[in-house]
């Protein structure tokens, strides 16, 4: 079961602290771009190219900030990308150790079934669409729940508060509209 909020909050706070103590604040959503860049470059090797100063891309977003993203996609064995893979591994092991998730819950969570019945296909469609909006928004904002909200507010970054205000202003009414039960 889920940890008591005091224990869970303390543990999560310690992970944030360990990250900034040893390396840098946690962030995730950039790695979706890096993954896209790796795929695009595999399909079309002209997508990312090496220059005298580093890397660049035919895509303006990949090429921005002196090709920072292009460089990461050209060399995925970097801290931030491995971090996200390790995060998945950590969640996998943790879920296994607590006995995993049952088959019904795996295709659609209880709160979905309570409101919309046993409609996994519709759930997949909403999850797909939700993912699209979440990542589009995260890239527009320059970060997500991890980088902006948690790491940002932890550092008292103005951008973190602006992001959190926007995220909750949309999330709370949306959740209340969609999930009336459960």
């Amino acid at each position, binding site marked *: *079961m889920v*940890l008591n*909020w*005091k224990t*869970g*909050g303390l*543990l*999560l706070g310690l992970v*944030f*602290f*360990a990250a*900034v*103590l040893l390396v840098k604040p946690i962030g*995730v*959503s950039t790695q979706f771009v890096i993954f*896209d860049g790796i795929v695009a470059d595999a399909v079309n090797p002209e997508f990312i190219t090496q220059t005298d100063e580093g890397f660049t891309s035919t*895509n303006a*977003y990949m090429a921005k900030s002196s090709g920072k993203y292009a460089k990461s996609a050209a060399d995925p064995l970097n*801290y931030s990308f*491995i*971090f996200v893979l390790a*995060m998945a*591994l950590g*969640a*996998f092991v*943790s879920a296994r150790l*607590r006995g995993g998730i049952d088959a*019904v819950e*795996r*295709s659609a969570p209880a709160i979905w079934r309570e409101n919309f019945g046993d409609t996994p296909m519709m759930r997949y469609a909403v*999850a797909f*669409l*939700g993912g*699209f*909006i*979440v990542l*589009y*928004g*995260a890239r*527009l*904002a*320059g970060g*997500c*729940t991890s*980088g902006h909200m948690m*790491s940002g*507010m*932890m*550092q008292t*970054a103005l*951008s973190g508060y*602006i*992001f959190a205000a*926007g995220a909750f*202003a*949309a*999330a*709370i009414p*949306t959740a209340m509209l*969609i999930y009336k039960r459960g």
Partner: protein
Amino acid sequence: MTSILLAIVIGAAFGAVLDRIGATNPNWIGGMLTLRRLHLMKTILLAIGVGSILMFGGQMIGLVDVGHMSVKAAYVGVFIGGLMLGAGWAASGYCPGTGVCAAASGRKDALFFIAGGLLGAAAYMATYPSWKASGLLDDLAGGKVTLGSVPGSSYDGLMSVSGDLLGIAIGAVFVLVAFVLPDSLVGGGETAEMPAE
């Protein structure tokens, strides 16, 4: 190589903790965002507060390298993007990190979330020049700024007060709010079952 090792250790710890606090579970996200079950909100507020106090305290005593801070720029697009993320987060029950963790923990719907996310990120990559040209990505209030002025950091402060002390004070407020916040703000929270695992 050290940095890869750290990525594995810190990343795995982050993923495991997200799994154990319920952040990767759409039932808990839904409970939080409908204000029916604020347990996860209390967890997150406490975590931000603890992280803030330890980080700024650590910087004051020289334990934490101020250069490790990484402050993102503020611009109008941060708010618009936040609104979009919020809507998608509420509908799907996942955000980028927790979606990846949920898929790893066996949730099939989270795989669809990731696929949608990769397409959404690609769509942003394709439309980035129009956003850039719109001016909505231009810095607001100095861009990469913190609320107070953090000694030794490369970021400007909005206010001249000590950023370290302000950070600790704000961190304490987060902790306090975590304790004061009730378990539910909207009826039905306590009675709602949380089966499914």
